């Protein structure tokens, strides 16, 4: 895929362009947070508590007097670090497991599936609290909890897809060409099974951001005063009824835009990776 083709592809899809723009905003926020933010994200200033947006504090301040704009910008680092680590580590572990247990349907595969059942039936928040008690209240603990949740999800998704792909005639054709099991699994089946996974990545990143917030809320996640969108929303939610809307609103918008960004990108990525969906069917003469 060359640059000209890629830009033509993007121009046909405004959604992909918006997704790319949002991603760029987030990358800038991550790289240049100290230059963009005019305050430290963790410095409390009791004298300027709950100031409304405007003036010196663009998004206002929370009840401890911390600048919300700075916190929203710095939180991009924390949130995307947790979400990306969790999702991509789960992908790297879950997808190969899914391919193997879909391809070989023996006793061992059943055992792996039952372990997944066990992991997925465990309440995520109880698991989170237990892990945090053991590992300490670090952002890495949150990432590990999320990984434990996402590995079975990706593995099951891939397995379901592999089950249908492995019966298709081109697999038999590959065997005739001399391909062994490993080559069939990872060169033939996997690329054809990835489409739903690519879509799921965006959903998982969104889920990761929301779950991080949830874990922080029950005290099993990131601690104050670390800037994290979910934590800021849950803090602000208590103030909402008092008419102090800005504490929860701005990190909330950040979550929405971030999730939207990955959803749009996933859509474009799905089309881009599937040769059948690239509508430039060659004109042919009969």
């Amino acid at each position, binding site marked *: 895929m060359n640059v000209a083709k890629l830009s033509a592809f993007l121009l046909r899809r405004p959604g992909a362009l918006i997704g790319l723009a949002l991603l760029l905003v987030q990358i800038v926020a991550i790289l240049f947070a100290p230059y963009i933010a005019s305050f430290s994200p963790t410095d409390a200033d009791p004298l300027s508590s709950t100031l409304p947006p405007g003036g010196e504090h663009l998004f206002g301040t929370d009840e401890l007097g911390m600048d919300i704009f700075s916190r929203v910008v710095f939180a991009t680092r924390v949130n995307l670090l947790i979400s990306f680590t969790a999702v991509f580590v789960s992908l790297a572990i879950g997808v190969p497991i899914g391919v193997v247990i879909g391809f070989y349907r023996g006793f061992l595969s059943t055992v792996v599936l039952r372990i997944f059942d066990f992991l997925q039936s465990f309440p995520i928040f109880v698991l989170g609290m237990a892990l945090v008690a053991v590992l300490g209240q670090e952002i890495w603990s949150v990432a590990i909890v999320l990984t434990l949740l996402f590995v079975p999800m990706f593995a099951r998704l891939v397995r379901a897809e592999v089950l249908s792909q492995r019966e298709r005639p*081109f697999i038999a054709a590959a065997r*005739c*060409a*001399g391909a*062994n099991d490993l080559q069939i699994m990872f060169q033939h089946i996997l690329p*054809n099974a990835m489409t739903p996974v690519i879509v799921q990545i965006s959903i998982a990143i969104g889920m990761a951001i929301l779950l991080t917030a949830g874990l922080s809320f029950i005290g099993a996640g990131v601690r104050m005063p670390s800037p994290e969108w979910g934590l800021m929303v849950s803090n602000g939610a208590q103030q909402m009824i008092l008419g102090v809307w800005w504490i929860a609103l701005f990190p909330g918008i950040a979550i929405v835009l971030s999730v939207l960004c990955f959803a749009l990108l996933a859509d474009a990525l799905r089309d881009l990776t599937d*040769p059948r969906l690239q509508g430039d069917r*060659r004109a042919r003469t009969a």
Partner: protein
Amino acid sequence: MHAPLDATPLLELDGLTVGIGGDAAPILNAVTCTLRRNEILGIVGETGAGKSLLTKAVLGLVPEGLRVLGGDVRFDGCSVFDRRNEDLRDLRGGKIGLIGTNAKALLDPVAPVGRQIARVLRAHARVGESEAQSRAIALLREVGITDPERRAKAYPHELSGGMAQRVVIAMALVTDPAVLLADDATLGLDATVQAQVLDMLVQRCRRRGLGVMLVTHDLGIVRNCCDRIAVMREGELIEIENVDAFLRGPRQAYSRSLLEAAKARPTPSIARHTASERPLLQAEKLVKIYGGPFTHQVRALDGVDFSIRPRETLALVGESGSGKTTAGQCVLRLTNPTSGRILFDGEDVTDLSAQKFKPWRRRIQMVFQEPYVALNPRWRVRDLIGESFRLLDPMSRGERERRISALLDAVHLPSSLASAFPHELSAGEQKRIGIARALATDPDLVIFDEPTTALDIRVRAQIIDLIRDLQSRRGMSALFITHDLNSVRSLAHNVAVMLHGRIVEYRSAEDIFATPREAYTRKLLDAELPVEDPPGRATNVSEAIAV
């Protein structure tokens, strides 16, 4: 042939033009023809000729995005396009019945078929549920379903393909239509079932005096069922003629090429063998049982013996479920036989491990049935053809490119196709890629699984010619798995007829076509609908029509 009793047209197409509009070429271009009472009109053309769109347009059902740009369709003297929706509903499934391809997919999977037929009737006539049911049952009996009371309660998945097709025909007939549109109604049915269904359909229509439009890509069907033939090409109706006159000599060059392509090629010259030459492939007492000791067992292969000598072609002929595909899979070790032996070039390869069998893969290759699904949709042609080079014979990139374009050349494709994806190719090109892929390792034996099904007439003839040509040039042996007797005539030296996992007759192709011994072989041969008379034998459908 049958003379129409009534010369007044039932259905008139007058310069019908359908397309997207604007500068784009119309998909149906000024189609003009008439259908009379008690007439069967065969509409023939290749994929993309606009046959299916024509049947839809007659019902006023032009797909979204397309418009009627000109012309008219008149049923009983009034235009279909001027009618209001209620009138159109009365027409669709009422006065004009439609029989589609793939009957099983057309039926509602969650309703008994009897009720589905009754539902159609009640949508068009004021009849009570019980009367509609009894009419449905009577009609099921009429279309040749045994024990119709019980079958009416069956769900579509409990019926065979042939029975489902009969149900769909009953559905189309239940409202006593004046016109019947059959769009490739027997596609995908076994030859014997196809002959029975067509036979029944033709008789019913004759008895009721219907006008029938029979859309097909099989000239054999037209010859044996139709009064007149209309040839379509790229949306235009280029020739309309009485079938007899057409078979004597079509006026248009395109029609002539279609007719030529549908005829069988002369039997290939018998490969000369010395008695001492040992068979390339021998299958001895192959048995394949599906299902375990505690579940229902299916004997897909039940003691099958056959052998193929070098440069020889054996055809395994039989209907779906006769075990012919399983036999091919056993030879390729895609599945392991329950018992029996497979000898290749004198060596027992039955129990070799996958790793040990790998060198043999180079010598035994397969061309898969459905060309598109047997090609990995995410791989380019270059990688698809070159896969076995990569896996079996490591070679430099340049050498691989050279061999790939040589292979594309061997199957008469331009080497520019190497960077195309399978979905960018036509069905014929996909089939050729499948063949090129099998030839990549220069095999001694190629298994062709249904090499000619679901292909257009001319593409089918091209593929047959290609296989004949490749065989004579490369001197390879072949195992054909097919139910298309026409291609067997053109390609095979020996024929093995399979039924329920056994070989019932196994002789040379000439002998088996001239003097079939077994009743089942005769039944298979009778079901063939050739475009030309094989010497000394009349086809049964044309006899049935003549009565």
